[in-house]
């Protein structure tokens, strides 16, 4: 049965349905509702909730809990996720699964509480020290948020690497009908987990780590690209957008199509690994790409450019419409498109 769910609560319940056993976090707007919800819901289900003294302790508790085999999660917003980066780096290096939720707010430093996507580059590049990546999924609806969280622990355990849910303040605050899946129990023993007996944890020797990690990430890149393509079969211009702005872009595509414009949309669902395959599938004759994002200078556009210039081996121009902390509007996107088509927009790449 579908019920109205608020994004942040849906994150929490979706994670619980997916098997969340341990959560540790620190209050920060606009993520706090996730932890507030879990603070009563987890004891109710006999699971472990910890309000940590800071973000750093929180991620490190997740590190310890994950190592001992608990399905573990932490969540925060931009500034808090910055503090967690060292711990995330340790999780990835030690091949430990975990789910990290980033309900983004705008800006560097304190920034503001406005919805945004300004953590794109940090989150898709691993974020911490060392050459590692984490799987990052960007939902654009409440149902998809739940579905991705439901799957996140299994994916994290499959590759033994953290998975991040890349949400946005507005997506956390809004409500939509949502069908909650059944509770799932983990169906296998984690023989690699630490149990105190000094058993073989399938640990990788230090000198084998680079080879092991290269292979792991290569496999993720090959198997885990996810995206949605709309009206790209005969497109001349392709919008690229993720999260909530992708829904605005989808409306704009629909309107423009009804006016006879040949526009399409690529919506990356996984933003790491970036869905380069979506670009390889595109038809010949595309004249331009437009990234629509709630950043200041454009961050996602860099990945679009990489995919375009590499995927096509041509120099099709890539444009960006970055709206700062404001959500783009359909009319505005249509106007930007018209300007682009008229040659009035300067390309980003």
């Amino acid at each position, binding site marked *: 049965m579908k019920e109205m769910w608020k994004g942040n609560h849906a994150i929490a319940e979706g994670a619980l349905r997916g098997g969340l056993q*341990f959560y*540790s976090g620190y209050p920060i707007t606009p993520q706090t509702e996730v932890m507030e919800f879990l603070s009563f819901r987890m004891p109710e289900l006999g699971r*472990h909730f*910890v309000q*940590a*003294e*800071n973000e*750093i*302790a*929180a991620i*490190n*508790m*997740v*590190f*310890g*809990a*994950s*190592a*001992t*085999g*608990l399905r*573990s999660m932490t969540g925060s917003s931009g500034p808090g996720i910055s503090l967690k980066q*060292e*711990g995330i780096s*340790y999780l990835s290096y*030690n091949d430990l699964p975990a789910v990290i939720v980033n309900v983004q707010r705008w800006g560097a430093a304190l920034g503001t509480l406005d919805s945004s996507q300004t953590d794109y580059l940090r989150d898709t590049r691993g974020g911490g020290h060392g050459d590692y990546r984490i799987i990052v999924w960007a939902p654009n609806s409440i149902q998809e948020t739940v579905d991705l969280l439901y799957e996140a622990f299994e994916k994290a355990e499959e590759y033994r690497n953290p998975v991040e849910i890349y949400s946005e303040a507005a997506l956390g605050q809004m409500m939509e009908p949502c069908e909650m899946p059944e509770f799932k129990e983990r169906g296998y023993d984690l023989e690699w*987990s*630490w*149990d*105190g*007996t*000094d058993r073989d944890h399938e640990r990788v020797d230090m000198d084998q780590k680079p080879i092991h990690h290269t292979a792991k990430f290569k496999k993720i890149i090959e198997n885990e690209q996810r995206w949605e393509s709309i009206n790209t079969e005969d497109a001349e211009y392709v919008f690229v957008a993720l999260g909530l702005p992708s829904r605005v872009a989808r409306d704009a595509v629909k309107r423009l199509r009804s006016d006879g414009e040949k526009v399409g949309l690529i919506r990356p669902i996984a933003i790491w690994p970036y869905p380069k395959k979506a670009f390889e599938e595109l038809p010949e004759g595309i004249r331009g790409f437009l990234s629509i994002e709630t950043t200041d200078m454009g961050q996602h556009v860099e990945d679009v450019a990489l995919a375009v210039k590499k995927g096509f081996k041509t120099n099709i121009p890539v444009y960006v419409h970055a709206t700062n902390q404001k959500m783009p509007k359909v009319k505005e996107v249509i106007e930007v498109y018209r300007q682009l088509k008229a040659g009035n927009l300067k390309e980003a790449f």
Partner: protein
Amino acid sequence: MAVARKIPKIMEEPTAFCAGCGHGILNRLIAEVLEEKGQEKNHILILGVGCNCNMNFTWGGDKLQCAHGRATSVARGAKTGRPDTLIISYQGDGDAYVIGLSDTINTAYVNTNVTTFAVNNTNYAMTGGQMSWTTIPGQHTTTSASGRDCESTGNPIKVPEIIAQNFDVAYVARGSLHSAKEINKTKKYVRNAIEAQLNGEGFSLVEVLAQCPTNWKVSTVDANEWLKDKVVPIYPLGEFKKREGRDDK
């Protein structure tokens, strides 16, 4: 009377510490207690960052290397996952008392049932002997080349006292490794801490004053004297928080 003695199996691999380093002694004390308590296959050592990183290659039991200062937080998570396993954080003074002061204090504050062993050798030894919050007044380190000036850098920090006086924890003690007598006392503290955890009594902390001849720039033998004469007077030995209802045998 002679008693048969053999290093525990956990210690089989030769240590990777400098000659005369106190870590090796404490490693053995912990290993002995684990063996006596039948816990050699039921513990996870949470390693901080410092000279104890060397134990990644030598410690013959479960261990988990974590980020600098965060061992007690990792221990909190691990204890949740494995409540019946001994969870022991093994850290240096820089790790547990400086960068990780918040984690250590907060773990004591919530009184998690884990054990912390903090090796205090009055400097950042792994990185070549920099000043730590535990560096004694006037001590020469690579970042206090003219001797530690406590006017501008603070006085030696006494975390066991802070914790024992302020938080409801199970057990807090400080031992030293400068003589056989003190080593035996320290072993008793180690045993108490581990027993406290086994009994679910709460957080236990044992600070262990250890010699660091390499960075103190003294001979190994002089390091024992240095420890006894210069360090111990600043850091009183003994139990600051005894286990309730137990006499400290």
